């Protein structure tokens, strides 16, 4: 099979915009909202950096997939949704979990495999879930959760609420069958599902351009479902927020699903042990330079917010994460009895009498 895509390792270098667009305006994008977005991005970045430190200290045993560099998407959506809306993420879902308001301690504890973990140590990094926060799960097999998100959206419709379901997924996920089934299904029944592709240009170690027939793996497919695909600067949280509000408002009003493709980049490798060296150095450097947190910091200063106010927020976040880390490290491992609980609704795992 000879390929039309560029040969491996020579994928087209994709550079970020030189500078962010001017701050977009939107009725809901007031200063409090922007500060919430700022805080959430910091929470994600700092918590994920902490997780990386813990990994280096050999305290995180399983795998983990960080979204450092991609915080703007999760933060903007986290602030844009309503508390009763539903979020569905992939294994790269720490940020989305944090953005729905899940506190850092159970997240860290789960990563460390502690009894106090968000999932009692049973799920691990790839499956963070907090139903009471509307964080309906992190899913580690590509594609399925796009179909599952439709179910939550359908349920909202049947129950007559105006909740929406947001499903986050990677560029690579757009080539699996479940993507196609999910988007068509949502379009046919006009479900309030918002499909958010976090296009970070790479799958694991292979560039999406090599294995995809179109340039925009999600947005260029929208028309196949009668939808308008939207491409947005995924490193500009305000831009994401505006796109999110449009999609959420439409979905709530019964206008059906949307596809949003947010272009972004992960600063590190695919998962914990991957240095990400398959990527052109120039590309990595440019995207690290075009960092969503730096961009947003600058924007808030430009909008007249005082540096001290932002520093105070960062300080609060660091303190919360420090305290959470300490508590998580001190927590015990799961009790042996936990092994056999919660397979069934009766709390147990018996399959025979």
């Amino acid at each position, binding site marked *: 099979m000879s390929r039309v895509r560029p040969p491996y390792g020579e994928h087209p270098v994709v550079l970020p915009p030189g500078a962010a667009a001017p701050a977009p305006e939107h009725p809901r994008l007031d200063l409090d909202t922007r500060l919430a977005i700022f805080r959430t991005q910091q929470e994600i970045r700092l918590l994920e950096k902490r997780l990386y430190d813990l990994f280096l200290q050999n305290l995180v045993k399983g795998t983990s997939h960080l979204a450092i560099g991609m915080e703007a998407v999760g933060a903007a959506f986290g602030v844009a949704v309503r508390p009763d809306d*539903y979020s569905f993420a992939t294994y790269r879902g720490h940020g989305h979990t944090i953005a729905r308001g899940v506190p850092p301690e159970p997240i860290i504890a789960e990563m460390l495999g502690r009894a106090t973990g968000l999932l009692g140590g049973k799920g691990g990094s790839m499956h963070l879930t907090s139903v009471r926060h509307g964080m309906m799960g992190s899913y580690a097999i590509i594609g399925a959760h796009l*179909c*599952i998100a439709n179910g939550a959206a359908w*349920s909202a419709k*049947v129950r007559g609420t105006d909740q929406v379901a947001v499903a986050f997924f990677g560029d690579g996920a757009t080539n699996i069958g*479940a993507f196609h089934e999910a988007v068509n299904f949502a379009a046919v029944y006009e479900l309030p599902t918002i499909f958010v592709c976090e296009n970070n240009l790479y799958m694991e170690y292979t560039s999406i351009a090599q294995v995809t027939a179109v340039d925009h793996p999600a947005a260029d497919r929208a028309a196949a479902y009668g939808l308008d695909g939207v491409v947005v600067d995924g490193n500009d949280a305000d831009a994401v927020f505006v796109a999110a509000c449009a999609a959420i408002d439409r979905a709530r009003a019964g206008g059906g699903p949307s596809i949003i493709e947010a272009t972004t980049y992960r600063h590190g490798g695919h998962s914990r042990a991957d240095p990400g060296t398959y990527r052109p150095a120039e590309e990595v450097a440019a995207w690290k330079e075009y960092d969503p947190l730096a961009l947003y910091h600058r924007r808030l200063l430009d909008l007249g917010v005082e540096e001290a106010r932002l520093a105070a927020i960062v300080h609060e976040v660091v303190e919360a994460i420090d305290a959470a880390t300490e508590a998580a490290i001190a927590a015990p491992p799961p009790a042996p009895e936990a092994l056999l609980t919660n397979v069934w609704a*009766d709390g147990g795992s018996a399959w025979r009498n």
Partner: protein
Amino acid sequence: MAELSYREAVARGIAQEMRRDPTVVFLGEDVAGAGGVFKTTAGLLDEFGPDRVVDTPISEQAILGALMGAAMTGLRPIAEIMFSDFFAVCWDLVANEIAKSRYMTDGQVSLPLVIKSGNGGGVRFGAQHSQSVENWAMAIPGIKVATPSCAADMVGLMAAAVRDPDPVLIFEHKALYATKQDVPDGEIVDRLGTARILRPGRHCTILALGLMVPRALAAAEALAADGIDAEVIDVRSLVPLDARTILDSVGRTARLFTVEENPRLCGWGAELASIVAEDAFWDLDGPVVRITTPHIPLPSAAELEDLAIPSTERIAGEIRRAMG
């Protein structure tokens, strides 16, 4: 009390629960307007309307995904996977998502859902439309599996499945759809996880499921003429498994035969045979014998398919030989 077909029993069980509970909804290909390709959902659209009974695209992953997402957010949905062979196109949703979600989230996620599916052979549909795949499901921790063999059980086990807080797969046997039975009027709710002794006997225990149940019963009658008094148990539920009823029976009869329609390897019969060989070894007076379809895909020609699936004669013959 009125005569009811196994086919009609499916819709009766579902309708009974949809009437009772407005959160019960139904989803599948050709299930609404057409009433299902096996006509097992006839009448549901008329009674419950298009918001609760929904025709879908040919998108089994989307169907089961929708089921799961709806179940975790307050509905009690039911889906049809038309032929159980098609579980292969959406097995990820069953095996990796629906089955594991409660455990992985340490109990946060509840999935009160039902998936019903036409299963089994004998109707000359060939290898891709005739499989018995209940053992695929039994092998996956986190799903319950029931296999009614008659109309009354179908109504009652369907109702129990809908009320159950865990995901349940109901396998309907395609070759039984036309069979009929007198079924009591009014609400019927059965219990998952219960086997049923259909014919008490002293000399050996025969376990069967689905289409193999009537054949095992007929074989037992034939064996009676030879002086072999066989106990026939309809296993009904693979997960949870009524191991007690089975082990007690073997305790009385000292011999076990399983009659399986699925291909030979790793079927429910292997599981039950090995449970007995472990837990009731000292009760046994002779080998545990599995009577199965050979380990082959099912052929379509009538003569070949009839040779493949255990027949009454083959069941009786193998038992006679083993008991001889």
